[in-house]
């Protein structure tokens, strides 16, 4: 389980996170929803120790993030984190060189799934295909937790569908996923848990299925209630 406890973060005088707390379980897809600039990416950066928090605690399976954590948890930011001059093959080789958890078999499976060619240079890829390579490099790691920052933003409808299909496949199954988005439509049916964020605080944290069963409300219904009224 990923536990985020009372996170605060200031950029200069601006307080971006103001005591954010939530949990994300293994085997579930947790979606952090909020408008742009609300601190979604900052939370993910904080979990991965990519930006220091002013206060708060982050635990992954009860332990603070250390170098060993990066074999257990991975982050797929909204831009690809490989050198543009690399080919897809070279990027995969880089991952294999540094990560014990790299699963070459799964990487090749993903290459086929996304219809990507190994010899293609990252800088020559379309936005959709770059997002798929980014996803491939994260998903091919045998990690327990995956963090994804806006995986659907700015890419074409077919690539979106393909990426959404990944969530229902064995490629994600059993892992804990935290995904951020400001457009819920593509993934509403996929998510287990929702964390609604605004002004640096968690407005509501709920289980999507339970909400549907007990109150008959979809995620969008709850969002309307919370944000508009």
């Amino acid at each position, binding site marked *: 389980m990923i536990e985020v406890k009372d996170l605060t973060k200031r950029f200069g005088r601006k307080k971006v996170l103001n005591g954010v707390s939530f949990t994300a379980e293994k085997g579930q897809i947790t979606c952090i929803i909020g408008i742009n600039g609300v601190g979604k990416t900052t939370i993910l950066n904080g979990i991965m120790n990519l930006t*220091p928090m002013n206060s708060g605690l982050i635990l992954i399976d009860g332990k603070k993030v250390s170098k060993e954590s990066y074999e257990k948890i991975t982050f797929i930011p909204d831009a690809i984190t490989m050198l543009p001059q690399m080919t897809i093959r070279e990027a995969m080789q880089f991952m294999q060189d540094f990560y014990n958890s790299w699963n070459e078999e799964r990487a090749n499976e993903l290459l086929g799934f996304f219809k990507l060619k190994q010899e293609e240079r990252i800088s020559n890829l379309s936005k959709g295909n770059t997002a798929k390579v980014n996803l491939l490099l994260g998903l091919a790691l045998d990690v327990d937790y995956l963090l994804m920052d806006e995986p659907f933003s700015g890419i074409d409808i077919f690539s979106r569908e393909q990426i959404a299909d990944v969530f229902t496949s064995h490629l994600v199954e059993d892992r804990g996923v935290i995904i951020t988005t400001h457009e819920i439509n593509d993934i509403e049916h996929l998510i287990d848990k929702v964390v609604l964020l605004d002004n640096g605080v968690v407005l509501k944290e709920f289980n999507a299925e339970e909400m549907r069963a007990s109150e008959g409300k979809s995620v969008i219904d709850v969002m309307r209630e919370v944000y508009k009224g």
Partner: protein
Amino acid sequence: MRSYFKLVNFELGRFMKIYLVLIGITIISQIAGVIVKSRGYLSEANQAIIVNSMPKEQFLEQFGQMSMGTFTQSIWFMGPIALCIAALIFYCFFIWYRDWFGKNTFIYRLLMLPTARLHVFLAKVTTIFLLVIGLVSIQLILLPIESMILKFIVPIDLRADLGIMEIISNSRYLFVLVPDSFIQFIINYGIGFMVVFIIFTAILFERSFRLKGILLGIVYSVLSIIVFIFPLLLEIFFGVNYLYPTELFVTEVILAIIVICAAIWTSNYLINKKVTV
């Protein structure tokens, strides 16, 4: 430790194309230069001795003998060295900033590697070290080749033959790059790499605290330099000069080690706790 070596290999690979171009420019410029300069000298000699019937002794008195010493003062020789030095100084900064800027922010990947983050820092320092040593080695290989070309073109009675060490000690600049004693080597390269450590730490200050970090980086750098030149400052400002040259050398080595250790400790702290993508 394996990750550290892999990172060094990776970092070297990232600069290799530009590095090979720098080596290429050095080789072409210096080899072409020694040919042009030697032939130029020879044609001057021919003009003076054969066409103008000047006695050879008078020509040598007036123009001097051609030697590698003369050639190493020329732009053909010094130009590429200056270019390489400028490129490496620039790369000391670019080796960090290239990971943050641009479309693909590679720093995310580097910071998420399942290895000590200090390895990323040390791999970059090692890369700069190897690049410098590599260029100096190429220069040491080039010198005897250039000397041979000069001997081939200029007849023995018009040239002064110098050994490699003589060529180096005759040139003010080469002498800094290739010192004639181990102690001098330690001093020159020790100071050089201490400065690289200080620059890298200052960059991490900036990458951690941005605008405020620039100020912190400058203050940190000035403090480090003050620590290193403290005995010198004592002498200049207070006239205190208790140390013999050997004692001064040992003191400076100890101070350099302290400055480098402080840089590594500070960088380790910053890259683990403060740096931000």
